[in-house]
């Protein structure tokens, strides 16, 4: 305990010295987030300074081992760092799918060589990763994927198409599920890594209803992938994918609660008196939202303690995303005609409407609500049948 208190005071001093004032403000838009990668540029000197200070301490990935560019912090220390960063509203120095997704998979399934190489790149923000899971024909039914990697001796030749690859047009490398055995459904998939600049890779952004294009279609046309660019064993990529999907749901569950933690009605910027029926709907929503916040906290506490049912993240993801959609429906209702505006200055370019539309993906991406309910029915309630 004494050690932890010392760590806290050291952390506080270090943050005081290294986190610029400008980096102690909420993230307003996409540009305030530094994603790293080959083509990255800093938005400001302060952003650069803060990133570099963190890289030096390993604080872009505080809990990863030091030898892979991490901070080597214990869980308790990492929590203190989070708390102290939260206290001063410090922005994350680096965001990336490498940190959130590939990293955890490599830590569990990667070879020592891979960890050294890829994790360090991620920690230092050198390579920006994207994810190649879904295909047009395989949404919830992920395992029906068709993208095929043909064995060509020392490499695979990959052909196919991925969809919903986040920021594929800006990413340097992709981690990608590829079928390497057409006979075996689950045990015929491999988890491959390759450079997006490889010959035969092309991307096309997908325009969403929110007007943004954070996702791409990615096409692979005779792409050569060396045999050592695989995580886990050949044809056992589904294990890696499942682990990552679980991790993703856990992450969505654990971190998605940001703005759900507060009372909607209290947080809302209202003009005039609230319609009494809308007020009642908000009150009933706030009961749900505040109760869910307690469940988030309980979930995190149980996770740390190794308690709780392993399928619980599915419940969390279901309830959390459905609530978030409803929250934004109510925000739109409270905002009235003003919140309908699509590109006005007063709405900061249609933020309420675009955010509202964005939330509709919450219950689709990372496993639909329907899939979550299936899993809860089967694995927690142990209901019979297919």
């Amino acid at each position, binding site marked *: 305990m004494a050690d932890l208190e010392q760590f806290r005071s050291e952390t506080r001093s270090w943050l005081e010295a290294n986190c610029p004032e400008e980096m102690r403000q909420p993230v307003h838009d996409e540009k305030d987030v530094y994603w790293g990668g080959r083509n990255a540029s800093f938005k400001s000197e302060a952003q650069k300074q803060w990133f570099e200070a963190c890289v030096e301490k390993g604080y872009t990935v505080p809990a990863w081992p030091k030898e892979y560019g991490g901070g080597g912090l214990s869980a308790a220390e990492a929590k203190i760092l989070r708390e102290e960063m939260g206290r001063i509203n410090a922005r994350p120095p680096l965001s990336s799918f490498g940190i959130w997704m590939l990293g955890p998979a490599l830590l569990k399934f990667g070879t020592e060589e891979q960890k050294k190489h890829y994790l360090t790149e991620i920690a230092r923000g050198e390579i920006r990763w994207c994810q190649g899971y879904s295909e047009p024909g395989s949404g919830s039914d992920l395992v029906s994927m068709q993208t095929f990697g043909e064995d060509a001796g020392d490499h695979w030749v990959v052909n196919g198409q991925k969809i919903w690859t986040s920021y594929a047009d800006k990413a340097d490398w992709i981690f990608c599920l590829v079928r390497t055995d057409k006979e075996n459904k689950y045990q015929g998939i491999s988890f491959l890594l390759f450079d997006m600049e490889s010959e035969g890779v092309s991307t096309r952004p997908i325009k969403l209803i929110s007007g943004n294009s954070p996702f791409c279609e990615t096409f692979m046309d005779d792409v050569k992938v060396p045999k050592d660019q695989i995580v886990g064993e050949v044809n056992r990529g589904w294990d890696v994918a499942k682990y990552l999907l679980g991790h993703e749901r856990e992450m969505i569950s654990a971190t998605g609660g940001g703005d759900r933690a507060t009372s909607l009605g209290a947080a809302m910027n209202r003009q005039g008196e609230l319609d009494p*029926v809308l007020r009642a709907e908000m009150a009933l929503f706030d009961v749900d939202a505040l109760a869910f916040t307690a469940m988030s906290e309980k979930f995190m506490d149980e996770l740390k303690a190794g308690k709780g049912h392993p399928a619980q993240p599915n419940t969390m993801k279901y309830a959390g995303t459905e609530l978030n959609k409803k929250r934004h429906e109510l925000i739109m209702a409270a905002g009235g005609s003003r*919140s309908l505006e699509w590109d006005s200055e007063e709405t900061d370019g249609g933020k309420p409407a675009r955010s509202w539309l964005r939330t509709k993906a919450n219950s689709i991406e990372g496993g639909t609500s329907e899939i979550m309910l299936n899993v809860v029915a089967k694995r927690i309630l142990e209901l019979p049948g297919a």
Partner: protein
Amino acid sequence: MALYHDDDQAMLADSASQFMAEEGSIAKQLRHWRDRECKDGFGHALWKQFGEMGFAGMMVAEDDGGLGMGNVEAGIVLEEIGRNLTPSPFLTSSVMAGTALGHASADLKERWMPGLVSGEQVYAVALDEGPKHRPESIATRAERSGNGFRLSGTKDFVVHGASADMIIVAARTSGSDSDENGVTLFAVPRDSGGMSQDAVRLVDSSVATHLKLDGVELDGDAVIGEVDGGREVLNRMLQAGRVGAAAESVGVARGAMDLTVDYLKQRKQFGRLIGEFQALQHRAAHLYSEVEIARAAVLKAQQLLDAGSEQADLMVSVAKAKAGRTAGLAVREGVQMHGGIGMTDEYDIGLYMKRDRALSEFMGDAYYHAGRVAQLSGY
């Protein structure tokens, strides 16, 4: 009167359905104009076709050159507009302004009716004075000035205001903001000095304005109906607008449901059509039930309104609330059941979601109208 369309109405429904599917389709109209960032948010050519078809002036009395039809008939056209997301000034011009002008002087009718009937002119209404619909309270002032009036105030959510040749403005000629009496309606021509508009594109690609009246001078003959006695005409205009928006919402709900049910019959997952999954079947069947209920409520409100019944006001609010909630359910279920592609701009289902949002807000959302139902029921 039986609560279904009579033969004439069924024929009208057929022709409106065919016309809208052919000329007013999403590809031909909504996407076309949206992708060109059209300043009007709709096509004038189509609006003239509305005139040729007789739709534009359908609610205008036969003596004034129209077809003398009622809210049921206008609702038939609006439901097809909703199904096809057809952008047009039909609701604000033909239904709302048309209803109000029906109570105007012969001079005013002569000035504005022909352009409406032919679809050559576009009219808008300026009622809201804040982000929420609260027409009980009107702060915009119209002071006597010579033979006429001088209008000052601001209005919001003036749909098609930027394209409108004339805007009907509700202003206060006496009393305090929330007084029942003391309201007067004005037909304000687009070029009136002192009127300025700030156009904003909305989520559904329509264009509305924030309107500013900075001492707008109007002749006394711009008054629709009686000075200080505009509340009754205003209420009729509101009722027509509300039940009209409700009819369009039912169309949006049906369009979204049809798209979604079709998708359930095509999309395969886990080796089965997703429409085979019972959980989705039940949700789709529940949605169907809600849509049928909303349709009936809207038709009932239209009939009561056309019959001049005292119950019309209550039923109009029931219809607006129910249709809005139902369309909301339809588009949410639609996007969710479409899965990832439902989030893409390429598929139409998202357009239904956007239109529903704007339409549900227009002339009072479901919360507002549920509150009215409670009030009118004495609780």
